[in-house]
């Protein structure tokens, strides 16, 4: 079970990122719990400046723009 956080105020790209993660997890057969972090305070506290950003099990792996499909799968597999 992986805990994935998507940081972003709720813009279109943030939602697209969440969908991408869900799809990738389903493809790989990995169970994920996705949490959306939307408040500016929590986003900043995580050290995120460009959204959407993604963390997997507490480790920040991506910031700014939609993630790359292959990279996304690698993050989930680790």
């Amino acid at each position, binding site marked *: 079970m992986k805990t994935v956080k998507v*940081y*972003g*105020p709720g*813009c279109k*790209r*943030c939602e697209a990122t969440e969908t991408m993660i869900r799809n990738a997890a389903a493809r790989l057969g990995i169970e994920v719990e996705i949490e959306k972090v939307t408040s*500016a*305070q929590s*986003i*900043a*506290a995580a*050290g*995120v*400046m*460009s*959204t959407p950003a993604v963390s997997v099990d507490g480790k*920040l*792996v*991506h*910031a*700014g*723009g939609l993630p790359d499909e292959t*990279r996304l799968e690698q993050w989930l597999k680790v």
Partner: protein
Amino acid sequence: MGHRAVSVAHDSHTGEAITFFFYDVPKVLLLLTAIVFVTGVLRSWFSPEKTRAILAGKREILGYPLAALLGVLTPFCSCSSVPLFIGFVSAGIPLGVTFSFLIAGPMVGPVGLGLLYGLVGWKIATIYLTFGFSVATLAGYAMGRMGLERYLQDWVRTLNTGPVNALPEEKITFVERLKTGAEQVREIVGKVWIWVLVGIGIGALIHGYVPEAVMLRIMGGEAWWSVPAAIVVGVPMYTNAAGVIPIVEALLGKGPLLAPRSLS
């Protein structure tokens, strides 16, 4: 257009409008695609995290122009403005410098600049760049002088963002940079093309039907309100430079708007 049913005399109003439209559509779309691609590739070397690392620890007075310049080059979605602001300020970048960055970004877009350069010439493009850059630099400087830091909420001031570069540096190959450019083209051109057509359509109507005398009377620069009026007309440019610049092109053909004719 040699077909009899649609043959229109070239010197008629309709003919002029149609010529303008069909000449401009491929020109603007090709130009837009090329500019968006080049901008996308160029911007793949920049990120808000790198920009913050560059700006943190720079002397404040150097910070303003540098922030304005980086604001033009750094890709960021406007929905990131708040986290960006907090990230910069909490890393010790002065408030004014942060504002220079945030103002320059949406104001001086490389896409608008490239289109102006391609459609109305380098002089106007240079003026646009110079003014946008100066406004961002000076506005940031003014806000820095106002001592607004005391209005920041406490948690912003005390927030420790940790290491400036929390993300592992991703190795990006040149092919991936080219792909980034292509994605930008798909995303941006795919979204704005319809507005480009609308903009060129309006430009074509102005070009073909609105007599010069009317345009000069409306925006000739004689009346005190011609500048505010031009600003109101120009507001859509903030949302979509690609759609509005063809209108500017048509207006320039009519003479007004840019008062000194020697410029065009």
